[in-house]
């Protein structure tokens, strides 16, 4: 495992800002979501699309009567721009089906620099 510098803190200051970098041949996206940094593989396990070029959003829910729609605005889901598969940037998990998960990467911040540990 080694530290790979991917950006400076000022490059990823805005909420939902992102950068996509190549680390040893693997494309990794680093997002800023809800004030935190997350590293996610830029590869959709559905059919190989550029997952991290998609939009970020919250999630539709139903309330306990099973009818009224609700929206959880914590915007930590990335949508693949090809077919709309959703993955939680914090865990890489697809909230719709446990069997699907994309790789995630540890992100560290030191002295104003952002690193991916891989």
């Amino acid at each position, binding site marked *: 495992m080694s530290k790979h510098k991917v950006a400076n803190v000022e490059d990823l200051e805005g909420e939902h800002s992102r950068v996509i970098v190549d680390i040893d041949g693997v494309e990794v996206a680093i997002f800023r979501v809800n004030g935190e940094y997350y590293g996610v593989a830029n590869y959709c396990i559905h059919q190989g699309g550029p997952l991290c070029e998609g939009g970020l959003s919250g999630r539709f829910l*139903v309330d306990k009567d099973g009818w009224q729609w609700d929206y959880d605005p914590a915007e930590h889901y990335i949508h693949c721009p090809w077919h709309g598969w*959703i993955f939680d940037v914090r865990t890489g998990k697809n909230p719709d089906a446990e069997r699907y998960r994309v790789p995630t990467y540890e992100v560290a911040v030191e002295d104003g620099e952002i690193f991916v540990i891989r």
Partner: protein
Amino acid sequence: MTRPTLQELTVVDVDSHLHFTWDEVLPYMEEKYPGAKRLIEYSSHPNSEIYSATRTTPAWFQTERHGDSELDVKGHGDVSNIDGSAGYVESTTAEAKLAMMDANGIDYSVLGTGPSRLATVNHDQTAVAIAAGYNDYVIDNYLDVDDRVKGTITVAPQKPNLAAEEIDRVGDEDGIVGVQFPEVGLIPPMGHELYDPIYQAAQDHDLTLLMHSGNAAAWPVFPVQRYWAETFVEDHAFTFVVEPMWHLISMIFRGVPEKFPDLDFVFQESGVEWLGWMMGRLDDHYLQSSQDVPLLTKPPSDYIRDQFYFGTQPVGERRNRRETAMLMKLAGGAETVMFSTDHPHPDFDPPSNVLATLQSYLDGTEVRAIMGETAIDVFDLK
């Protein structure tokens, strides 16, 4: 590798028809529904004046017609069929059914489908009356004869709250294992919340929900393009399959199995070879658009494998029967497929033929499950 014979297997038929005339059922309506009873008696064409049933051309024109004067089907017509064909005398008593079962190696039969055109009855009170009259007739005549013959009750979907009361009234009778839900010609489709009281009652009483395909009653609502069919086969080949597909999709995406996780659903005579394709299609849709259906907590194929079952009849005709068995495996095999005859209809499947097909490709465990062991679990037969 051992190949069990029919006699060695426990065989359960999950789609075995009762046939009966209005004359047999109407007396059961006199006490609580005298008005509806008289309305039906007054009609000379109940199939078009009580139900809305019609065919493009006569059904199964090439098969033997065993018109039987005892059944009086040319007068009022019987409750559930227009034609009087195909050895119906075997389906008019439990004893006759048992004789057929013994001749064919069938250990248990789930009898139905009753007035499968009930959803097309325009007059709601009459629909409720027919369901109650039929249920009392079945309980009186078919149960308490032999433990191997199980029955189902039916309900009028027009009045879901009354349907739930009917399930409360007769659902716990000894020998009743399920509720026939009339899906043919039903609008809105089965996923609509209107029907929740029925699903709740069936779940509360530990009863399986059964849906039998049809086409004679489907025409007013589904599919509209049936108006251009020229013959029975064009309509039947399509409608029997696609209407249950619609109800399956409706129930899955509206969250019926999510809301009623202990309820099992059995589709009869809708074919099963298409199910493998459908599971993949629904999962694909779900993963691309899960925010359309926030009620769902798992992919559609998981709900299907956990709670949905499909009768084998009618098995498609292929040059290589191994391919049919492969399609049944892709459809979920032991998890979803259950043997059925559709006796006595002309397109029935005898168990010997279905067994041979399954054995051409599937292993013993899966064959045993499909021929009866899955049904024993689902209907709690032992």
